[in-house]
C-alpha cells in the first residue's frame, strides 16, 4: 500500500507542517503540486468552521475486515470470503460489498487505526460517544451535548438530535453516555425517527390524549389575553424564554415549523436514492436537519433495523451470520445511504461546513469464530470522515497484517471527540471551561 497518509506521528501534537510537506513531496501525483500543498496548509483555518455535524453511529460494532480494512493476504481463518476492489484513493481497497462508497472515496478520508477501551456495547458506546468510561467518575457528556452547549439552545429547533433510538436489541439498558452527562439533561438529544417508508415520528411532538393543534392554539390565545401589560416582568433572559416558548408552540401547532422533519417534501427519486430503509430515510432526515443548521445530528443504526427475522436484529453485532448479513443487508444499506448522503451534501454545497462522520463503537475479531462469524474487537476499527474541512481522499493510520491492532498511532474516541469539538469551534480553552474532553487532542492528520 502506498504510504501517504500513514503518518507515524511522534507525539500527541500530530504531524508537523514539515512532515506534511515531506510526505507530499514523496507522492507528488497523489497530492498535486507544491502550491496545492501550500494551499492545503493555508486552509488550516478550520477550527469553528463546522456548522452541523452528522454522526452515522453504526451500533453493534461493524466488522472492519469485511468492509473498509480488508486483509486479502491474511491467512484464510482471518480474511473472510469477500474480494477486494480498488477505491478512488490510490492504494486503498475496500471489500466488494461497498462499490458505491469506493467510487466516492475522493470525498472522504478513512481512519483505520481506531481503538477503544471497552469490549461491551454499553461501555464502548459510552466511550465512543463521550471519550470516557462509564465508571471513571461523573458521566461525561456526549460529543453532541458539548457542541449543543457551545452553540446555545434557544433556536427554533433543538441543537442535538438523535435520529432513531439506536439501542441494539441486546442492550439491556440505556447507555450512560447517551446525552448531557455533566452538562445536564438540558443537553440530552431530541429524539426523532423515520421508518423505512420515510414516515417520521417525533415522540415529544406527538400530542397527548385530548390535545389537538386547535386546542393548543386556543390556550395560547387565552394566555396572550391574560398576559396584561401591567403584569409583565422585567427579567434577564425573559425574551429568550418567550422565543423558546414560541418555538415549542410552532412545532406543536404549526405544520410549517415541522418542515425540517417532513420527508414528503423530497422527491421520490431523492428518497429512493437513500434506500427504503430506516437507516436510509434517517440519513435523509439528517440531511434536512443539517440544512436547517441543527448543530449536531446523530443517526443511529436503529433498533429493529432491517430485521433479519422479526424482532431479532442486533445492529452490526453479527456474532452469527456475519458474512450473510453483511453481504445481503448491512453493507448494501450503508453503501447506498452513505453515498446518497455525501452526494447530496456535496451537491447542495453543505459539505464545506458539515462534518459527516461514520463509525461504530468497535470492530470485530479478524479471526473468524467457531460460529463462522466474528466477535467484539476493541483493539482496531475504522472511522470515515468527510466535509467540514477534512482533507478528503486519504487513508490515515494502518492496522497490522491481520487487522488486529494498529501499527500507527492509535486513534481513541477521545481524539475523535476532541477533533469534532475543535472543528465546531470548541477550542482547548472552551473545553477546559466546560470541563469536558480533558486531555484530548485533535487528530491533526485529518486537517
Amino acid at each position: 500500500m502506498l504510504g501517504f497518509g500513514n503518518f507515524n506521528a511522534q507525539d500527541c501534537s500530530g504531524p508537523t507542517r514539515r512532515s506534511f510537506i515531506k510526505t507530499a513531496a514523496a507522492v507528488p501525483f497523489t497530492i498535486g503540486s507544491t502550491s496545492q500543498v501550500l494551499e492545503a496548509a493555508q486552509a488550516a483555518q478550520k477550527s469553528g468552521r463546522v456548522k452541523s455535524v452528522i454522526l452515522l453511529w453504526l451500533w453493534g460494532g461493524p466488522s472492519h475486515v469485511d468492509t473498509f480494512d480488508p486483509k486479502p493476504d491474511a491467512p484464510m481463518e482471518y480474511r473472510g470470503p469477500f474480494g477486494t476492489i480498488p477505491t478512488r484513493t490510490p492504494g486503498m481497497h475496500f471489500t466488494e460489498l461497498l462499490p458505491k462508497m469506493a467510487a466516492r472515496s475522493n470525498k472522504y478520508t478513512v481512519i483505520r487505526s481506531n481503538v477503544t477501551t471497552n469490549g461491551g456495547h454499553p461501555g464502548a458506546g459510552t466511550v465512543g460517544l463521550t471519550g470516557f468510561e462509564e465508571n471513571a467518575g461523573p458521566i461525561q457528556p456526549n460529543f453532541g451535548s458539548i457542541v449543543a452547549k457551545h452553540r446555545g439552545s434557544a433556536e427554533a429547533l433543538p441543537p442535538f438530535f438523535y435520529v432513531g433510538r439506536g439501542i441494539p436489541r441486546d442492550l439491556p439498558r440505556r447507555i450512560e453516555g447517551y446525552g448531557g452527562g455533566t452538562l445536564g439533561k438540558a443537553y440530552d438529544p431530541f429524539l426523532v425517527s423515520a421508518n423505512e417508508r420515510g414516515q417520521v415520528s417525533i415522540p415529544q411532538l406527538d400530542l397527548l390524549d385530548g390535545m389537538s393543534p386547535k386546542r393548543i392554539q386556543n390556550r395560547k390565545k387565552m394566555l396572550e389575553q391574560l398576559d396584561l401589560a401591567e403584569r409583565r416582568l422585567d427579567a434577564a433572559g425573559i425574551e429568550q424564554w418567550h422565543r423558546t416558548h414560541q418555538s415549542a408552540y410552532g412545532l406543536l401547532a404549526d405544520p410549517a415549523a415541522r418542515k425540517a422533519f417532513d420527508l414528503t417534501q423530497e422527491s421520490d427519486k431523492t428518497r429512493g436514492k437513500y434506500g427504503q430503509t430506516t437507516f436510509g430515510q434517517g440519513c435523509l432526515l439528517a440531511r434536512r436537519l443539517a440544512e436547517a443548521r441543527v448543530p449536531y445530528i446523530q443517526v443511529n443504526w436503529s433498533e429493529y433495523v432491517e430485521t433479519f427475522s422479526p424482532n431479532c436484529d442486533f445492529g452490526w453485532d453479527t456474532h452469527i451470520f456475519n458474512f450473510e448479513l453483511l453481504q445481503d443487508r448491512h453493507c448494501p444499506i450503508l453503501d447506498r445511504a452513505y453515498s446518497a448522503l455525501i452526494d447530496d451534501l456535496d451537491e447542495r454545497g453543505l459539505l464545506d461546513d458539515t462534518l459527516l462522520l461514520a463509525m461504530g463503537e468497535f470492530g470485530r475479531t479478524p479471526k473468524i469464530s467457531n460460529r463462522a462469524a466474528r466477535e467484539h474487537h476493541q483493539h482496531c476499527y475504522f472511522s470515515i470522515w468527510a466535509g467540514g474541512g477534512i482533507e478528503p481522499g486519504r487513508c490515515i493510520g494502518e492496522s497490522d497484517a491481520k487487522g488486529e491492532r494498529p501499527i500507527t498511532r492509535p486513534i481513541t474516541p477521545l481524539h475523535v471527540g476532541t477533533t469534532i469539538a475543535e472543528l465546531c469551534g470548541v477550542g482547548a480553552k472552551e473545553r477546559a471551561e466546560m470541563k469536558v474532553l480533558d486531555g484530548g487532542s485533535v487528530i491533526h492528520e485529518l486537517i
Partner: protein
Amino acid sequence: MKITWYQSTIFNALGLSACLLFAKTLNAENVLYEEAELSISPIEAGKPLRLEIHPKEFTLSGNRQQLQILVTAFYADGESADLTRAALYKVANTDCASVNDRGVVVPKIDGSTTVRASVGKLHAEMVLDVKNQDKPEPVSFKFQTLPVLSKAGCSMGACHGAPHGKGGFRLSLRAFDPVLDLKTLVHEEFGRRVNLLEPERSLLLAKPRMEVAHEGGRRLRKGDLEHQLLKDWIREGCVADIDASACTGIRITPGTGQFRRLPHHVQQFRVEASFADGSTRDVTHLAVFESSDETVLKVSRHGLAVGVRRGEAAVIVRYLEHIQSTLLSFVQDVSGFEWKAPNPVNFVDSHVYKKLRKFQYLPSEPCRDEEFLRRVYLDVTGLLPTPEQSLRFLEDKQSDKRQRLIDELLDSQNYTAFWSQKWGDLLKVSAKQMGISGALKFHNWIQQSIVENRPYDEFARSILNANGSNFINPATNFYRSGSDTSDHMESTTQLFMGTRIGCAKCHNHPYERWTQDNYYGLSAFFNRINTKKTGRKDEVVVWMDREGEVHHPVSKKVVEPWVPGGEDSLNQKKDRRKAFTQWLTSQNNPFFAKVEVNRIWTHLMGRGIVEPFDDFRDTNPPANKSLLEALAEDFAVNGFDRRRTIRTILLSNTYQASSRANEFNRDDKRFFSHYPARRLTAEQLLDALGDLTGMPEKFQGVRASTRATQLPAPDLKPHDRGKIGEIEFLKVFGMPERQTVCECERGDETSLGQALELYNGKTLHRMLTHSETRHRKLIRQKLSDDEILRELYLRAYARTPDPRESEIAKQYIKSAENREKAYEDLVWALVNKDEFLFQH
C-alpha cells in the same frame, strides 16, 4: 472564504455567551486592541488646578528600557483626570531622550535631564537619568522575548499555549516553562522557526505577520516594538538568560479605586516590575492588559483604558507569571437624575445605595405585598403560600408584618428542608456517590445542622475533619464523593474558598495567581485520607494515614502543606487537615466568610455580589466590595450565624425592591437596583404545579409527603432503565445530578425541551386531566366561576384576579362546550404566564 482572526474571535465570543464560566475573561484574553480600534474621543483638559507627573524621577539604564509617564490633572470640584495623552512633553536635553505623544520616554545617550509635561499654562516636571546607553544590551529571553510572545497572544490558552499547541507548535501557557519554550523555539524541528542569517524571515516572525499563512491571524507588524524585540533576539543569536535574576512582582499605577467622570473617559496605566537583585524596570510595553468587563471599559495594548459606559471593571495586568488587577470606574451625570431612596433598613441598603448613587442608578420602589409574599415563600421554603397563608398576610394591617413573616418562615420546617437541599447539591449528596443509606444519612446530618443553625465554621470543620464510618459520622460521606487527593482538595477550595484552582494542577492558573506549587501545597493536606469499605452495604470508613507525601509533578520533590499567607509550620504529625481547617475557619481568613455570605446572597438575590458566586479571584471583582466585606464581617463576628445573614438580607429594602425597573435603572444588571426576576428552579416549579393543581408529585424512596424541594438526593429511584426520549420533568428543568461541587451544575438555561414539556408534557398533562385535580373538585363543590378563579389565582400568584382577568377567564369558560376542559385550559394558561414561571 477565509475567516479572519477578528471575525473568528467575535464568533467565539458570541458562541460562548451561553457558557456561564469565564465568558468575559475569554473575550478579554483574545483581544489585543490597537488604539485606533477603540473609540477614543478628543480628551478635554478643562480647567485643572494643578498637574501631577508620575514618576517624579526615574533612571533608564540600558538602551532597551522605556518609561511610561503618567500625567494627572486635579480640578476645583475635587475630581481628577488622566491627561497623559493630552499633555505636551518637552525634554530639556533633547540629546538625552525623547518622549512620544503616548508619554513614553525612550533613552538616547547618557546624561541627566528633566521632562516637562504641560497642559495650557500648567506644568509638571520629572527628573530623568539616562545611563549605560553605550553598552549594548542583548534582548532578555526571559524578560522580553517571552513576555512579547505572551503579549502578542502566541502563548495564550486558545493558541500555542493550548496543552498540545496549535499547528504542531506548542508554547507553555503564558510562558510558565521558559526552558521548554527555548527548546521549542530554537531547537525543535531542526531550528526552522528562527533564521539566524535573515532574522526578519524567521518563521516565528513571518507567520504572525501573515506573510506565511497563520491560523491565528496577524499578531505582529514590522513597525511594532514587539516585532523589533523578537527580531533583535534572533539576530543576537537566540541567547537565553534562563538564570537571570527572577522577577519578584509587578506594581500598577494608578492603584485601585480610581474613578473618572465622563467625558473623562481614558486612563493610562503604568506597570513596573521588581527583580530579585533589587532593580526595577518599567514593563508597560511588555505587559498584557485585559478588562474584566468589556461593556464598561476596554484596554489598548499600550495600557490605555477607555471607558465605554458608566460602571466599574478590573484592569488586569499580566507580566510573566505575575497577575495584578486594579479597579477603575467611570461615572456619568445622567440628565434628570435625582437621588431618592427609602431610608436604609440596615447596612445592606447603605452599601447598595452608596454604589447606586455613585453610578446614578435609582433603586426601584418597594414591591407589592403579594409580590413580597410569593417571593419570600419561594426563597425561604421553596414552596408557594397557600390561600390561607396569603390571605392572612395580605389582610394583616400591621406595619411589621413582613418582618414577622420572615421570622415565621425561618423557623419553619420547610426552611430547613429547602436549605438542606441547597447544601445537598454542593456536597454531592447522591445515591450514586454514597449509596442510598449514605445519602440519606448525610442528608439528615445536613438537616440537623440547619435546624440547630450550627455555626458555619463548625459545620465546615466537622465535614473537612470527618473520620470514621459514614453510618456513624455521616459527614465522612464528603470524602466518599471524591475519588482522590486532587478531588478532595479541589472540592474543598471551591466550596469553602470560592476558588477554582483546578487549572493549576497542570500549569500556573491562567487567570489567577494560583501556581502549580500552591496546588500541590494545598493537596498535601488531603493526601493522607484513606477509605475502606466494610462488610455492610454502603458503609465506608474514612481515616488519616500516618504518612504519605505529595510530589510535585515537575520537580518530583516532596511538597510541604501550604496555605495562602501561612508562615507557621503546617505539617502536623497527627492529622494535617486540622491545620488547614484551623486556618480556613479563622476570623480573618480572606475567603471563608465571604464565600458563604456571597452564596446566601446569590440564593436570595439571583445573582452573586461576586458572580459566578464560587469564582473568587482578583480578576473577577465583586459588584460591591464594601457590601461583601460588611456582610462577611457581620457573619464572622456573630458566630458564623447563617440564619442571621439570611434574615438581614431578607429585611433589607434591597431584597424587597420591585422587580420592575424604572427609567433610571433599566440597564443596571450589576448593582442590585431592582430585584432580578428569575425562573423557578426545577423543584420549585414541580411543587408549584403540584400545589396549584392539588396533585403533588410522589417520589420513590421517601415519605409520601416529601416535596421536590425537599428530596434528599436526585437518584433515589432504582436504576433507570428508561429509554432515550422519556422525559424526566425535574431533569429537563435543570435539577443537578450532583456530580460536581459546582452550583453551575444546576442548569438555569432555557431549552426547547422545557417549553415542550409545558405544552405537551406528561407530568403537567396528568395533573391537569386527573379526576381529582383541583379545578374539578372545585367545580364539583358547585362553586361559582368567581370563587374558583379566586382560589386558583391565590394559589398561582398569591393574589386575587383583577376584574379584567376575571372577565377574560369567565368569557372563555362560558363560550366553551365543556366546563372542566375549559378550566384545564385556564389552569394551563395560568401556569404558562411569566408571573407563574418566574420568581419576581
